Protein backbone atom coordinates (compact mmCIF):
# COMPACT_ATOMS: atom_id res chain seq x y z
CA UNK A 1 0.00 0.00 0.00
CA UNK A 2 1.29 3.42 -0.93
CA UNK A 3 1.51 6.38 1.43
CA UNK A 4 2.69 9.97 1.40
CA UNK A 5 6.13 10.31 2.99
CA UNK A 6 7.73 13.46 4.34
CA UNK A 7 11.14 14.06 2.78
CA UNK A 8 13.74 16.74 3.49
CA UNK A 9 16.32 17.01 0.74
CA UNK A 10 19.36 19.26 0.67
CA UNK A 11 19.17 21.59 -2.30
CA UNK A 12 21.94 23.92 -3.35
CA UNK A 13 25.38 24.24 -4.86
CA UNK A 14 28.87 25.43 -3.97
CA UNK A 15 28.10 24.84 -0.32
CA UNK A 16 25.16 27.23 -0.19
CA UNK A 17 21.79 25.63 0.14
CA UNK A 18 19.04 24.49 2.44
CA UNK A 19 16.96 21.51 3.41
CA UNK A 20 13.71 21.60 1.44
CA UNK A 21 10.57 19.79 2.51
CA UNK A 22 8.62 17.58 0.16
CA UNK A 23 5.67 15.25 0.48
CA UNK A 24 6.04 12.40 -1.94
CA UNK A 25 4.32 9.13 -2.71
CA UNK A 26 5.96 5.89 -1.58
CA UNK A 27 4.90 2.44 -2.78
CA UNK A 28 5.58 -0.99 -1.38
CA UNK A 29 9.07 -2.36 -2.02
CA UNK A 30 10.63 0.99 -2.87
CA UNK A 31 14.00 2.31 -1.84
CA UNK A 32 15.07 5.90 -1.11
CA UNK A 33 16.44 6.30 -4.64
CA UNK A 34 13.02 5.45 -6.10
CA UNK A 35 11.50 8.24 -4.04
CA UNK A 36 14.20 10.68 -5.11
CA UNK A 37 13.45 9.75 -8.73
CA UNK A 38 9.74 10.33 -8.12
CA UNK A 39 10.63 13.76 -6.76
CA UNK A 40 12.57 14.46 -9.95
CA UNK A 41 9.60 13.31 -12.00
CA UNK A 42 7.11 15.47 -10.11
CA UNK A 43 7.97 18.37 -7.83
CA UNK A 44 11.68 18.88 -8.37
CA UNK A 45 12.70 18.20 -11.99
CA UNK A 46 15.99 20.04 -11.45
CA UNK A 47 17.09 17.90 -8.48
CA UNK A 48 20.61 16.61 -9.14
CA UNK A 49 21.41 13.05 -8.07
CA UNK A 50 24.12 10.66 -9.24
CA UNK A 51 23.02 7.07 -9.78
CA UNK A 52 23.58 4.21 -12.11
CA UNK A 53 22.88 0.55 -11.34
CA UNK A 54 20.16 0.67 -8.65
CA UNK A 55 21.57 -2.61 -7.36
CA UNK A 56 24.24 -1.58 -4.87
CA UNK A 57 27.08 -2.43 -7.23
CA UNK A 58 28.15 0.79 -8.93
CA UNK A 59 28.70 2.92 -5.81
CA UNK A 60 27.21 6.07 -7.38
CA UNK A 61 24.25 6.96 -5.17
CA UNK A 62 26.12 7.50 -1.90
CA UNK A 63 24.43 10.03 0.35
CA UNK A 64 23.46 10.53 3.98
CA UNK A 65 20.02 9.36 4.93
CA UNK A 66 18.83 10.56 8.31
CA UNK A 67 22.44 11.45 8.97
CA UNK A 68 23.83 7.98 8.19
CA UNK A 69 26.09 7.40 5.19
CA UNK A 70 24.18 4.96 2.96
CA UNK A 71 23.60 3.98 -0.63
CA UNK A 72 20.21 5.40 -1.61
CA UNK A 73 19.45 2.37 -3.77
CA UNK A 74 20.01 -0.04 -0.88
CA UNK A 75 18.00 1.80 1.75
CA UNK A 76 14.52 0.39 1.86
CA UNK A 77 11.64 2.72 2.65
CA UNK A 78 10.16 -0.05 4.80
CA UNK A 79 12.90 0.64 7.37
CA UNK A 80 11.27 3.99 8.16
CA UNK A 81 8.01 4.63 9.94
CA UNK A 82 5.33 6.11 7.66
CA UNK A 83 5.13 9.30 9.72
CA UNK A 84 8.92 9.68 9.90
CA UNK A 85 10.61 12.50 8.02
CA UNK A 86 13.41 11.12 5.87
CA UNK A 87 16.30 13.56 5.48
CA UNK A 88 18.61 13.10 2.50
CA UNK A 89 21.81 15.13 2.29
CA UNK A 90 24.97 14.87 0.18
CA UNK A 91 28.11 13.29 1.65
CA UNK A 92 29.54 15.87 4.03
CA UNK A 93 33.22 15.18 3.50
CA UNK A 94 33.29 16.05 -0.19
CA UNK A 95 32.49 19.37 -1.91
CA UNK A 96 29.04 19.69 -3.37
CA UNK A 97 28.59 20.13 -7.09
CA UNK A 98 24.84 20.41 -6.83
CA UNK A 99 22.11 19.05 -4.56
CA UNK A 100 23.02 15.44 -3.76
CA UNK A 101 25.97 15.24 -6.16
CA UNK A 102 29.42 15.66 -4.63
CA UNK A 103 32.84 16.02 -6.17
CA UNK A 104 34.72 12.88 -5.14
CA UNK A 105 37.91 13.65 -7.09
CA UNK A 106 39.91 13.62 -3.81
CA UNK A 107 39.55 9.85 -3.92
CA UNK A 108 40.91 9.54 -7.44
CA UNK A 109 43.86 11.76 -6.58
CA UNK A 110 44.66 9.49 -3.62
CA UNK A 111 44.27 6.38 -5.78
CA UNK A 112 46.91 7.69 -8.17
CA UNK A 113 49.46 8.07 -5.38
CA UNK A 114 49.56 4.34 -4.63
CA UNK A 115 52.43 2.52 -6.33
CA UNK A 116 51.02 -0.11 -8.68
CA UNK A 117 51.42 -3.86 -8.23
CA UNK A 118 55.00 -4.91 -8.88
CA UNK A 119 55.61 -8.57 -9.59
CA UNK A 120 59.39 -8.20 -9.77
CA UNK A 121 61.08 -10.55 -12.22
CA UNK A 122 58.07 -12.78 -12.72
CA UNK A 123 57.31 -13.10 -16.43
CA UNK A 124 53.72 -13.01 -17.69
CA UNK A 125 52.16 -16.44 -17.24
CA UNK A 126 54.78 -17.70 -14.80
CA UNK A 127 53.15 -16.79 -11.54
CA UNK A 128 50.65 -19.18 -9.99
CA UNK A 129 48.51 -18.01 -7.11
CA UNK A 130 46.90 -20.42 -4.66
CA UNK A 131 43.27 -20.09 -3.62
CA UNK A 132 44.12 -19.33 0.04
CA UNK A 133 46.15 -16.33 -1.09
CA UNK A 134 43.50 -15.22 -3.57
CA UNK A 135 40.81 -15.29 -0.88
CA UNK A 136 42.64 -12.86 1.31
CA UNK A 137 42.65 -10.00 -1.19
CA UNK A 138 39.35 -11.00 -2.76
CA UNK A 139 37.51 -9.51 0.18
CA UNK A 140 39.07 -6.13 -0.57
CA UNK A 141 38.28 -6.46 -4.27
CA UNK A 142 34.58 -6.42 -3.41
CA UNK A 143 34.91 -2.66 -2.92
CA UNK A 144 32.50 -0.76 -5.19
CA UNK A 145 34.19 2.60 -4.53
CA UNK A 146 31.13 4.30 -3.15
CA UNK A 147 33.52 6.21 -0.84
CA UNK A 148 31.12 6.00 2.08
CA UNK A 149 34.07 4.85 4.22
CA UNK A 150 36.14 7.88 3.30
CA UNK A 151 33.10 10.07 3.81
CA UNK A 152 32.43 8.80 7.31
CA UNK A 153 36.05 8.70 8.49
CA UNK A 154 36.34 11.51 11.03
CA UNK A 155 40.04 12.02 10.21
CA UNK A 156 39.02 13.95 7.07
CA UNK A 157 35.34 14.53 7.79
CA UNK A 158 36.06 16.58 10.91
CA UNK A 159 39.62 17.65 10.10
CA UNK A 160 39.58 18.65 6.45
CA UNK A 161 43.21 19.76 6.59
CA UNK A 162 44.19 16.08 6.86
CA UNK A 163 43.05 15.39 3.31
CA UNK A 164 46.52 16.20 2.09
CA UNK A 165 48.24 13.44 4.06
CA UNK A 166 45.50 10.90 4.69
CA UNK A 167 44.16 8.57 2.02
CA UNK A 168 41.17 7.30 3.93
CA UNK A 169 40.20 3.70 4.65
CA UNK A 170 39.48 2.87 1.02
CA UNK A 171 43.04 3.48 -0.14
CA UNK A 172 44.75 2.25 3.00
CA UNK A 173 42.87 -0.97 2.26
CA UNK A 174 44.35 -0.92 -1.25
CA UNK A 175 47.84 -0.50 0.21
CA UNK A 176 47.15 -3.42 2.58
CA UNK A 177 45.91 -5.56 -0.31
CA UNK A 178 49.13 -5.01 -2.25
CA UNK A 179 51.27 -5.46 0.85
CA UNK A 180 49.62 -8.86 1.45
CA UNK A 181 49.93 -9.96 -2.17
CA UNK A 182 52.27 -12.97 -2.40
CA UNK A 183 53.82 -11.85 -5.70
CA UNK A 184 54.25 -8.16 -4.93
CA UNK A 185 57.88 -7.33 -4.19
CA UNK A 186 57.47 -3.79 -2.85
CA UNK A 187 57.58 -2.72 0.79
CA UNK A 188 54.74 -0.29 1.33
CA UNK A 189 54.89 -0.08 5.12
CA UNK A 190 56.74 3.23 5.37
CA UNK A 191 54.57 5.05 2.85
CA UNK A 192 51.45 3.62 4.49
CA UNK A 193 52.45 5.52 7.63
CA UNK A 194 54.20 8.58 6.19
CA UNK A 195 52.32 9.36 3.00
CA UNK A 196 48.95 7.70 3.36
CA UNK A 197 48.44 8.53 7.04
CA UNK A 198 47.76 5.12 8.58
CA UNK A 199 48.78 6.51 11.99
CA UNK A 200 45.87 8.96 11.86
CA UNK A 201 43.42 6.07 11.91
CA UNK A 202 42.19 5.54 15.45
CA UNK A 203 40.27 2.41 14.51
CA UNK A 204 36.83 3.58 15.57
CA UNK A 205 35.53 1.23 12.87
CA UNK A 206 33.12 3.65 11.21
CA UNK A 207 34.45 2.59 7.80
CA UNK A 208 33.47 -1.01 8.53
CA UNK A 209 30.11 0.10 9.92
CA UNK A 210 29.06 1.93 6.74
CA UNK A 211 30.54 -0.40 4.10
CA UNK A 212 27.65 -1.62 1.90
CA UNK A 213 29.77 -4.60 0.80
CA UNK A 214 30.36 -5.59 4.44
CA UNK A 215 34.12 -5.61 4.00
CA UNK A 216 35.85 -5.86 7.37
CA UNK A 217 38.03 -2.89 6.51
CA UNK A 218 39.33 -2.29 10.02
CA UNK A 219 39.89 -5.87 11.16
CA UNK A 220 41.21 -7.32 7.91
CA UNK A 221 43.02 -4.39 6.30
CA UNK A 222 43.78 -1.48 8.61
CA UNK A 223 44.73 -3.33 11.81
CA UNK A 224 46.86 -5.96 9.96
CA UNK A 225 48.53 -3.06 8.15
CA UNK A 226 49.11 -1.24 11.45
CA UNK A 227 50.71 -4.41 12.83
CA UNK A 228 52.97 -4.62 9.78
CA UNK A 229 53.97 -0.99 10.24
CA UNK A 230 54.82 -1.73 13.89
CA UNK A 231 57.13 -4.49 12.64
CA UNK A 232 58.87 -2.06 10.34
CA UNK A 233 59.07 1.06 12.50
CA UNK A 234 58.20 0.62 16.15
CA UNK A 235 59.22 -2.86 17.27
CA UNK A 236 62.49 -2.57 19.25
CA UNK A 237 63.31 -6.28 18.81
CA UNK A 238 62.96 -6.05 15.04
CA UNK A 239 65.13 -2.93 15.10
CA UNK A 240 67.77 -4.73 17.17
CA UNK A 241 67.56 -7.75 14.86
CA UNK A 242 68.17 -5.54 11.84
CA UNK A 243 71.19 -3.98 13.54
CA UNK A 244 72.82 -7.32 14.26
CA UNK A 245 71.87 -8.73 10.88
CA UNK A 246 69.24 -11.28 11.98
CA UNK A 247 66.38 -9.37 10.34
CA UNK A 248 66.83 -8.32 6.72
CA UNK A 249 65.23 -5.05 5.72
CA UNK A 250 64.69 -4.24 2.09
CA UNK A 251 64.27 -0.81 0.59
CA UNK A 252 61.04 1.04 1.16
CA UNK A 253 58.95 1.90 -1.85
CA UNK A 254 58.35 5.62 -2.45
CA UNK A 255 54.84 6.77 -3.20
CA UNK A 256 53.81 7.04 -6.84
Amino acid at each position, binding site marked *: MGYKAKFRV*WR*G*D*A*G*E*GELKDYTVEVNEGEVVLDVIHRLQATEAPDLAVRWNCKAGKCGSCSA*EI*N*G*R*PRLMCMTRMSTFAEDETV*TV*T*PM*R*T*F*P*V*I*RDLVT*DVSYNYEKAREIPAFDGGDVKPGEFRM*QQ*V*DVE*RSQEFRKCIECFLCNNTC*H*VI*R*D*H*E*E*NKEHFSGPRFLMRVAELE*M*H*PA*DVQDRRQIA*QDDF*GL*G*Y*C*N*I*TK*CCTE*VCPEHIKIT*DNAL*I*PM*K*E*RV*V*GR*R*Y*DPLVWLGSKIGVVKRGKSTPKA
Partner: protein
Amino acid sequence: MTQTTVDAPAKDRARIPARTLRTDRWWSYPLTTFIVFTAWVIYATVRSMMGSSFWVEKYHYLTPFYSPCVSKACPADAADFGRFVPDHLPFFIPYALISLPFLLGFRLTCYYYRKAYYRSFWLTPSACAVPDKSPVRKTPGRYSGETRFPLILQNAHRYFWVIAALISIVNTWDAINAFHGEDGGFGIGLGTIILWVNVILLWGYTLSCHSCRHVMGGRLKSFSKHPVRYWLWTQISRLNTRHGQFALITLGTLALTDAYVALVAHGSFSDLRLFN
Protein backbone atom coordinates in the same frame (compact mmCIF):
# COMPACT_ATOMS: atom_id res chain seq x y z
CA MET B 1 29.88 25.87 -33.73
CA THR B 2 30.98 28.20 -31.01
CA GLN B 3 32.67 26.56 -28.10
CA THR B 4 31.95 27.94 -24.65
CA THR B 5 33.77 27.27 -21.45
CA VAL B 6 31.84 26.79 -18.27
CA ASP B 7 33.63 27.62 -15.05
CA ALA B 8 34.08 24.74 -12.69
CA PRO B 9 31.75 25.10 -9.72
CA ALA B 10 33.27 26.51 -6.55
CA LYS B 11 34.34 23.71 -4.26
CA ASP B 12 32.76 23.73 -0.87
CA ARG B 13 31.06 21.25 1.36
CA ALA B 14 27.34 21.43 1.93
CA ARG B 15 26.92 23.86 4.82
CA ILE B 16 24.42 21.93 6.87
CA PRO B 17 23.96 23.69 10.22
CA ALA B 18 22.82 20.61 12.17
CA ARG B 19 25.67 18.89 13.99
CA THR B 20 24.29 15.53 12.99
CA LEU B 21 21.08 14.52 11.32
CA ARG B 22 21.11 11.07 12.85
CA THR B 23 17.76 10.20 14.37
CA ASP B 24 18.68 6.88 15.97
CA ARG B 25 20.02 6.52 19.50
CA TRP B 26 23.67 6.86 18.43
CA TRP B 27 24.63 8.12 21.89
CA SER B 28 23.63 4.90 23.68
CA TYR B 29 26.83 2.96 22.80
CA PRO B 30 29.30 5.63 24.02
CA LEU B 31 27.18 6.42 27.07
CA THR B 32 26.82 2.76 28.09
CA THR B 33 30.52 2.14 27.49
CA PHE B 34 31.44 5.20 29.55
CA ILE B 35 29.30 4.09 32.50
CA VAL B 36 30.39 0.43 32.40
CA PHE B 37 34.12 1.19 32.00
CA THR B 38 34.10 3.87 34.70
CA ALA B 39 32.27 1.60 37.12
CA TRP B 40 34.65 -1.26 36.37
CA VAL B 41 37.79 0.86 36.80
CA ILE B 42 36.52 2.16 40.16
CA TYR B 43 35.68 -1.37 41.34
CA ALA B 44 39.00 -2.84 40.15
CA THR B 45 41.03 0.00 41.67
CA VAL B 46 39.33 -0.30 45.05
CA ARG B 47 39.58 -4.09 45.10
CA SER B 48 43.21 -4.33 44.01
CA MET B 49 44.25 -1.81 46.68
CA MET B 50 42.09 -3.28 49.42
CA GLY B 51 44.62 -5.85 50.55
CA SER B 52 42.00 -8.17 52.09
CA SER B 53 39.38 -10.81 51.15
CA PHE B 54 41.34 -12.08 48.16
CA TRP B 55 42.17 -15.63 49.24
CA VAL B 56 39.98 -18.48 50.47
CA GLU B 57 42.36 -20.64 52.46
CA LYS B 58 40.00 -23.63 52.76
CA TYR B 59 39.52 -24.09 48.99
CA HIS B 60 42.58 -22.27 47.60
CA TYR B 61 40.60 -19.66 45.71
CA LEU B 62 42.71 -16.67 44.68
CA THR B 63 41.06 -13.75 42.94
CA PRO B 64 42.62 -12.75 39.58
CA PHE B 65 43.14 -9.20 40.90
CA TYR B 66 45.79 -10.58 43.28
CA SER B 67 47.42 -13.08 40.97
CA PRO B 68 50.30 -13.69 41.23
CA CYS B 69 50.38 -12.66 44.86
CA VAL B 70 54.01 -11.63 45.32
CA SER B 71 53.82 -9.41 48.40
CA LYS B 72 55.24 -10.59 51.72
CA ALA B 73 51.74 -9.92 53.07
CA CYS B 74 50.30 -12.78 50.95
CA PRO B 75 49.49 -16.08 52.72
CA ALA B 76 52.11 -18.76 51.92
CA ASP B 77 49.68 -21.01 50.00
CA ALA B 78 48.51 -18.11 47.85
CA ALA B 79 52.04 -17.19 46.81
CA ASP B 80 53.20 -20.02 44.54
CA PHE B 81 55.41 -17.63 42.62
CA GLY B 82 57.34 -16.31 45.60
CA ARG B 83 56.92 -13.41 48.01
CA PHE B 84 59.57 -10.91 47.10
CA VAL B 85 57.82 -7.55 47.46
CA PRO B 86 57.98 -5.83 50.87
CA ASP B 87 54.66 -5.66 52.69
CA HIS B 88 54.99 -2.10 54.00
CA LEU B 89 54.45 -0.35 50.69
CA PRO B 90 51.90 2.47 50.26
CA PHE B 91 48.28 1.27 50.08
CA PHE B 92 47.97 2.01 46.35
CA ILE B 93 50.64 -0.55 45.42
CA PRO B 94 48.70 -3.74 44.70
CA TYR B 95 49.90 -7.16 45.86
CA ALA B 96 49.93 -8.30 42.22
CA LEU B 97 52.07 -5.38 41.12
CA ILE B 98 54.00 -7.52 38.64
CA SER B 99 50.88 -8.35 36.62
CA LEU B 100 48.26 -5.61 36.99
CA PRO B 101 50.13 -2.78 35.20
CA PHE B 102 50.75 -5.05 32.21
CA LEU B 103 47.17 -6.27 32.11
CA LEU B 104 46.05 -2.65 32.20
CA GLY B 105 48.50 -1.88 29.38
CA PHE B 106 47.21 -4.86 27.39
CA ARG B 107 43.62 -3.66 27.63
CA LEU B 108 44.47 0.01 27.08
CA THR B 109 46.36 -0.72 23.86
CA CYS B 110 43.88 -3.38 22.69
CA TYR B 111 42.33 -2.56 19.30
CA TYR B 112 38.83 -3.19 20.63
CA TYR B 113 39.23 -1.02 23.71
CA ARG B 114 40.82 1.72 21.65
CA LYS B 115 37.66 1.92 19.57
CA ALA B 116 35.53 1.85 22.71
CA TYR B 117 37.33 4.56 24.66
CA TYR B 118 38.10 6.80 21.71
CA ARG B 119 34.37 6.83 21.12
CA SER B 120 33.14 7.14 24.68
CA PHE B 121 35.86 9.05 26.56
CA TRP B 122 37.73 10.97 23.82
CA LEU B 123 34.60 11.50 21.66
CA THR B 124 36.73 11.21 18.52
CA PRO B 125 34.08 10.56 17.28
CA SER B 126 31.38 9.37 19.68
CA ALA B 127 29.51 7.72 16.80
CA CYS B 128 29.87 7.46 13.04
CA ALA B 129 28.95 10.64 11.15
CA VAL B 130 28.68 12.52 14.44
CA PRO B 131 31.27 15.30 14.74
CA ASP B 132 34.44 14.75 16.67
CA LYS B 133 34.11 16.63 19.97
CA SER B 134 37.67 16.46 21.19
CA PRO B 135 39.34 19.81 22.06
CA VAL B 136 41.76 19.42 19.12
CA ARG B 137 38.88 19.87 16.72
CA LYS B 138 38.88 23.58 17.41
CA THR B 139 42.50 23.95 16.30
CA PRO B 140 43.05 22.92 12.67
CA GLY B 141 46.08 20.71 12.23
CA ARG B 142 46.11 19.50 15.83
CA TYR B 143 44.59 16.09 15.18
CA SER B 144 47.45 13.63 15.03
CA GLY B 145 45.69 10.32 15.64
CA GLU B 146 48.15 7.72 16.87
CA THR B 147 51.22 9.33 15.34
CA ARG B 148 52.58 11.20 18.38
CA PHE B 149 53.30 10.65 22.04
CA PRO B 150 51.48 9.36 24.04
CA LEU B 151 49.21 7.55 21.58
CA ILE B 152 52.15 6.32 19.54
CA LEU B 153 52.69 3.92 22.46
CA GLN B 154 49.63 2.00 21.25
CA ASN B 155 52.13 0.32 18.93
CA ALA B 156 53.52 -1.60 21.92
CA HIS B 157 50.40 -3.77 22.00
CA ARG B 158 52.22 -6.93 20.87
CA TYR B 159 54.55 -6.78 23.89
CA PHE B 160 51.64 -6.39 26.28
CA TRP B 161 50.03 -9.35 24.54
CA VAL B 162 53.05 -11.58 25.23
CA ILE B 163 53.02 -10.61 28.92
CA ALA B 164 49.24 -11.06 29.12
CA ALA B 165 49.63 -14.59 27.71
CA LEU B 166 52.18 -15.37 30.45
CA ILE B 167 49.80 -13.99 33.08
CA SER B 168 47.02 -16.16 31.64
CA ILE B 169 49.25 -19.17 32.41
CA VAL B 170 49.46 -17.94 36.00
CA ASN B 171 45.66 -17.58 36.10
CA THR B 172 45.35 -21.13 34.77
CA TRP B 173 47.61 -22.33 37.57
CA ASP B 174 45.30 -20.58 40.07
CA ALA B 175 42.31 -22.35 38.56
CA ILE B 176 44.09 -25.72 38.85
CA ASN B 177 44.87 -24.92 42.49
CA ALA B 178 41.19 -24.27 43.06
CA PHE B 179 40.52 -28.04 42.81
CA HIS B 180 41.18 -28.12 46.53
CA GLY B 181 38.93 -29.96 48.90
CA GLU B 182 38.14 -29.25 52.51
CA ASP B 183 40.33 -32.15 53.69
CA GLY B 184 43.26 -30.97 51.60
CA GLY B 185 42.66 -33.39 48.71
CA PHE B 186 40.73 -32.99 45.48
CA GLY B 187 37.55 -30.96 45.59
CA ILE B 188 35.22 -28.93 43.40
CA GLY B 189 33.03 -26.05 44.40
CA LEU B 190 31.13 -23.29 42.66
CA GLY B 191 34.22 -21.12 43.08
CA THR B 192 36.31 -23.65 41.11
CA ILE B 193 33.83 -23.48 38.23
CA ILE B 194 33.75 -19.67 38.34
CA LEU B 195 37.56 -19.50 38.27
CA TRP B 196 37.67 -21.91 35.31
CA VAL B 197 34.99 -20.08 33.32
CA ASN B 198 36.92 -16.86 33.91
CA VAL B 199 40.27 -18.29 32.86
CA ILE B 200 38.86 -19.94 29.71
CA LEU B 201 37.31 -16.65 28.66
CA LEU B 202 40.55 -14.84 29.49
CA TRP B 203 42.34 -17.21 27.12
CA GLY B 204 39.65 -16.47 24.54
CA TYR B 205 40.34 -12.76 24.91
CA THR B 206 44.14 -13.15 24.85
CA LEU B 207 44.26 -15.51 21.88
CA SER B 208 41.75 -13.53 19.82
CA CYS B 209 44.00 -10.46 20.00
CA HIS B 210 44.84 -8.77 16.69
CA SER B 211 48.57 -8.88 17.51
CA CYS B 212 48.28 -12.64 18.11
CA ARG B 213 46.58 -12.97 14.72
CA HIS B 214 49.44 -11.04 13.13
CA VAL B 215 52.11 -13.12 14.84
CA MET B 216 50.45 -16.47 14.05
CA GLY B 217 50.27 -15.86 10.32
CA GLY B 218 48.86 -12.46 9.48
CA ARG B 219 52.33 -11.08 8.83
CA LEU B 220 52.96 -13.55 6.02
CA LYS B 221 52.72 -12.55 2.39
CA SER B 222 51.96 -16.06 1.22
CA PHE B 223 49.66 -18.42 3.13
CA SER B 224 50.11 -21.30 0.69
CA LYS B 225 53.81 -21.58 1.49
CA HIS B 226 53.16 -21.82 5.25
CA PRO B 227 50.23 -24.24 5.73
CA VAL B 228 50.68 -24.67 9.51
CA ARG B 229 50.80 -20.96 10.17
CA TYR B 230 47.87 -20.48 7.80
CA TRP B 231 45.88 -22.99 9.84
CA LEU B 232 46.81 -21.18 13.06
CA TRP B 233 45.84 -17.86 11.46
CA THR B 234 42.43 -19.19 10.44
CA GLN B 235 41.75 -20.46 13.98
CA ILE B 236 42.80 -17.16 15.55
CA SER B 237 40.80 -15.28 12.92
CA ARG B 238 37.70 -17.17 13.99
CA LEU B 239 38.24 -16.08 17.57
CA ASN B 240 39.25 -12.60 16.44
CA THR B 241 35.81 -11.86 15.01
CA ARG B 242 34.58 -12.05 18.63
CA HIS B 243 37.46 -10.13 20.18
CA GLY B 244 35.22 -7.27 21.30
CA GLN B 245 32.77 -9.69 22.89
CA PHE B 246 35.58 -11.46 24.75
CA ALA B 247 36.87 -8.06 25.89
CA LEU B 248 33.55 -7.13 27.42
CA ILE B 249 32.62 -10.56 28.77
CA THR B 250 35.96 -10.89 30.55
CA LEU B 251 35.42 -7.52 32.24
CA GLY B 252 32.26 -9.05 33.67
CA THR B 253 33.78 -12.42 34.59
CA LEU B 254 36.82 -10.79 36.22
CA ALA B 255 34.59 -8.63 38.42
CA LEU B 256 32.24 -11.53 39.18
CA THR B 257 35.08 -13.93 40.01
CA ASP B 258 36.68 -11.36 42.25
CA ALA B 259 33.38 -10.53 43.95
CA TYR B 260 32.62 -14.22 44.56
CA VAL B 261 36.05 -14.92 46.04
CA ALA B 262 35.87 -11.72 48.12
CA LEU B 263 32.46 -12.59 49.55
CA VAL B 264 33.44 -16.18 50.38
CA ALA B 265 36.76 -15.02 51.87
CA HIS B 266 34.94 -12.39 53.90
CA GLY B 267 32.53 -15.02 55.19
CA SER B 268 29.41 -13.40 53.69
CA PHE B 269 28.36 -16.84 52.47
CA SER B 270 29.98 -20.22 52.18
CA ASP B 271 31.08 -21.81 48.93
CA LEU B 272 28.61 -24.18 47.29
CA ARG B 273 30.51 -27.49 47.26
CA LEU B 274 29.89 -30.08 44.58
CA PHE B 275 32.57 -32.52 45.73
CA ASN B 276 34.61 -32.44 48.93
